[in-house]
């Protein structure tokens, strides 16, 4: 696990507006290791999404550095499914490949294989609006991993869903990223979710945010996220994280 895939060094980010400057991130540093599931949690408005925007290259207006290991390919999944309702399920999942001009027969077959493997085989030609919330989120994840990324960023991927669906989808997504051996950096404000899916949880301080604490999550009988919630250590981690965020 100690194979470093990304290191973040001393990131600083502020938002400037007419009414003044708000420092969102001040001196943020951490490392990410290959194959791990890292969650970043913090109170709302502490700049969690900003971190993902910077790391994914969407936001270039910051100070500090981050370095990916050579040839690391990354992609992004948002809170809203942000699918294209005028396209079919298959066309939606191919959009990344299309933009990156990698729509080869082989890659298309890979995406079809993913859709089949994760229960969407019969829905390939269905329009998006005919799917349930959970299925949409699975389509969005397959779109994210269709380009075969080594690392994916998840920005509150479950928060638009109702509680039942949310548990189920987090199980689904956990299974998929583990099976496809993808490193994950997930941003969330939900403590239970973070503990149940993560190998490590990084707690951000209130604004301006920096790393407050990093916890290795060691649960006995670690299995699926839903089962992990029943682990004896779960409550202990919950209390610790709760205190950390609240302080």
């Amino acid at each position: 696990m100690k194979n470093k895939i990304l290191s973040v060094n001393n990131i600083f980010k502020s938002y400037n507006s007419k009414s003044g400057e708000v420092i969102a991130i001040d001196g943020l540093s951490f490392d990410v290791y290959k194959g791990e599931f890292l969650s970043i949690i913090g109170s709302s408005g502490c700049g969690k999404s900003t971190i993902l925007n910077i790391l994914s290259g969407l936001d270039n207006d910051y100070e500090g550095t981050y370095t990916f290991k050579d040839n690391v390919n990354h992609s992004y999944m948002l809170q809203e499914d942000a699918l294209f309702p005028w396209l079919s399920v298959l066309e939606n999942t191919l959009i990344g490949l299309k933009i990156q001009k990698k729509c080869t027969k082989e890659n298309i077959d890979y995406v079809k294989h993913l859709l089949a493997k994760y229960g969407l085989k019969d829905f390939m030609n269905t329009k998006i609006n005919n799917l349930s919330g959970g299925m949409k989120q699975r389509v969005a994840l397959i779109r994210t991993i269709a380009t075969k990324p080594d690392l994916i960023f998840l920005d509150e991927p479950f928060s638009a869903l109702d509680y039942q669906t949310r548990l189920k989808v987090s199980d689904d997504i956990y299974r998929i990223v583990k099976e496809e051996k993808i490193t994950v950096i997930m941003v969330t404000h939900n403590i239970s979710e973070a503990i149940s899916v993560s190998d490590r949880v990084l707690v951000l301080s209130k604004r301006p945010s920096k790393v407050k604490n990093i916890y290795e999550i060691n649960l006995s009988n670690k299995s699926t996220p839903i089962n992990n919630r029943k682990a004896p250590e779960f409550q202990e981690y919950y209390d610790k994280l709760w205190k950390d965020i609240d302080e």
Partner: protein
Amino acid sequence: MSKRQELFLKKYRHKQVFIKFVQIFLAVFILGVWELLARLGLIDTFITSEPSKIFLTIINLFKEGNLLEHIWVTLSETLIAFFITGIVSVFVSILLYRSETLSRIVDPYLTILNSLPKVALGPILIIWIGANKRSIIVMAILISIIVSIQSISVGLKNTNKSRIKILKTFGANEWEILRYAVIPSNYKLIVNACKINVGLCLIGIVMGEFLTSKAGIGYLILYGSQVFNLDLVMSGIVILLVMSILLYSIISSIEKHLDC
């Protein structure tokens, strides 16, 4: 099917039938009363005309052989104005979407131009462009294009930000973002703008024909009023009604075929 569902469907169907019936009845009633009052001599048909005469006038215009030509003149001018408006307003809207600064610069101009009664520009158009078809078409474009630009550019700006963000994370360039997210998100809005445009263009063309023309339905109406032939005036209006219904329904049927 449950009793309640059956009852619901029955009520629903009754309501549909009732609405259609009243709609048709109203038209027949108005025409009937008009015709009746005219026949009984209670209204002066010299200034009100009457449905049967309007019908006969239209038939006669057909037989004399130049009605089709008038329709064609008005229709072709309308379609030319409509296509130019559509293409230019989509193009300008994309420019305004791409540049927030440009959009903010031109915003007050668009608002002012929108509230200017375009018909006031008629005399200038005739002097600059000449008393010909071109000024008529320009008049129609002026009437429809500002509203069209405003509604389309607002739609483009309101495109779902998450969809754009997703494309950016895959490395999409501006053109790909337009092609995969912005334009398809706004198909419906663009078709709706077209529906409004086709009506406005027809209005503009008739207004232009009132100002200067040698043919067209607007010319027929104006000519009719000058020689005090109200049958001709009313016939022109009826033909315009039919034309606007047809143009509108063509675009509606295109909308139904667009899967969005």
